[in-house]
């Protein structure tokens, strides 16, 4: 039966590529019992890494959300020269290697970089410190809010906004009462995607952070640090925490998805 064959192929592939590997991670993390796994994610170094990841996300996500909404308004509602370039730059992080992103920031803020000598003369640390890690995270997660909001803005058109304006509403009132309620689920969905991408960033951050344990080490860097130091339980335990976060993201995505037919 054709239907059954296709189902078997699809589910078999998913089991081999996705579910199989993922379930082994959980098993590996708790191989030596719950205790070692627990202490691997609650020791000061791990706690600091998770805290740093959350702090970076807490800055990059709101910044990209405000940018994303404004950028979407600009793309949909305002013709201007260079729009094609703007679109291309916003999409680029979807296709560009995070290593290249990190390296570009490294060149800009490093000792010999354009801003490097001025910054170090003024005692401002960007590279191997929080600012460059925030910039790297913001770079890689820039497209998501824009890409979710643009199609919705296109679809709702401007009739209602014009009506509100005719009735004497100010520009801010129109945005708050008409435009924003129409795009809020798309914004929310975009925020979830941005958050997921920010929490998981590894390549760009590993170039710009200097990977100093307990200082500039994020959760993903902690995972690779543990692995490189042959602390397999530690690496897998921290992975489990990140995987649980990813599953929380998936659940949120699915709660948001049916609303207004986003995707």
């Amino acid at each position, binding site marked *: 039966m054709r*239907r059954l064959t*296709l*189902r078997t192929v*699809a*589910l078999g592939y*998913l089991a081999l*590529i*996705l579910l*199989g*590997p*993922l379930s*082994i*991670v959980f098993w590996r993390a708790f191989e030596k019992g719950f205790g070692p796994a627990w202490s691997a994610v609650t020791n000061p170094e791990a706690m600091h890494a998770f805290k740093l990841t959350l702090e970076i996300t807490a800055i990059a996500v709101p*910044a990209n959300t405000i*940018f994303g909404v*404004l950028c979407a*308004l*600009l793309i949909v*509602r*305002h013709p201007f020269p260079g729009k094609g370039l*703007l679109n*291309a730059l*916003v999409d*680029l*992080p*979807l*296709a*560009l*290697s*995070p*290593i*290249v*992103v990190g*390296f*570009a920031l*490294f*060149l*800009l803020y490093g000792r010999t970089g354009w801003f490097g000598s001025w910054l170090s003369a003024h005692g401002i640390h960007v590279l191997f410190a929080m600012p460059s890690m925030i*910039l790297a995270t913001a*770079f890689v997660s*820039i497209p998501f809010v824009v890409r979710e909001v643009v199609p919705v803005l296109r679809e709702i058109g401007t009739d209602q906004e014009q009506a509100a*304006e005719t009735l004497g509403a100010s*520009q801010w009132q129109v945005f708050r009462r008409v*435009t924003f309620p129409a795009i809020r689920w798309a914004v929310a969905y975009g925020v979830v995607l941005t958050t*997921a991408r920010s929490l*998981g960033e*590894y*390549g760009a951050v590993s*170039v710009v952070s200097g990977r100093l344990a307990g200082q500039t080490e994020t*959760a*993903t860097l902690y995972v*690779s640090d543990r*692995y490189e130091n042959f602390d397999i339980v530690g690496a897998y335990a921290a*992975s489990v925490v*990140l*995987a649980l976060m*990813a599953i929380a993201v*998936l659940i949120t*995505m699915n709660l948001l998805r049916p609303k207004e037919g986003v*995707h």
Partner: protein
Amino acid sequence: MRRVSPFGGLTLGVVVTYLSLVVALPLTALIWQSTKGGKTGFWESLTSPEAIAALKLTLGASLVVALINAITGTIIAWVLVRDEFPGKGVVNALIDLPFALPTIVAGLTMLALYGPRSPVGIDVAYTRTAIVLALLFVTLPFVVRTVQPVLQELDRELEEAAESLGASNWQTFSRVVFPNLLPGILSGVALAFAKAIGEFGSIVIITGNIPFKTEVSSVYIFGQIESGNTSGAAAASVVLLTISFGVLLLIGALRRWATRHHA
């Protein structure tokens, strides 16, 4: 002139400034760095045997992965739209897991099942097969998510008409369904290819990064940065940047083609 946003002309200023600071400026620094050594310097860094081998491997592996995705992604999308089975909702939600899961965790995940301590006795660690497996994991969502909405919208009456006119299953698929899916499949494949070209986190652990054997371009660039060869890293980065831009242009063209196809 049409109202742009509640923030008026400020919007353009904010969007352009933010995008310049986060995306455009670092990329300009990168391109500038690559031209520093002159044409010959750039060319020498570009054509060093290790860089060429890494690029060839990256392109080859990404191509293989994109093609596998074209087939498996279409089958999975088909099963998720046309088939009914218990747990379908969960399977559908899991498709996005590779997006939500940090890439370094994805790498450890593949290593746990297909590495030296594999519980199923398959050990592909430090081989090119490992690269393909890791890339298949991280690129899973793209084709599924571009084909799925097209299949959902596809008018089933067309297929029923074809069948009632005596077309076989295969004829109905190849003559009726496939032409409609093609633009979606191609943009999904292009996105998967772009993602695969730049992938770092999931590959860096499982392949061992042996030059000329399992070293892909992003890992090569990382190595060059670590060893202080800035011009080598810059040349290879510019190559990846160019490929990313090219793929994005291609996806843009595909989208326009799909819209015209639809109209």
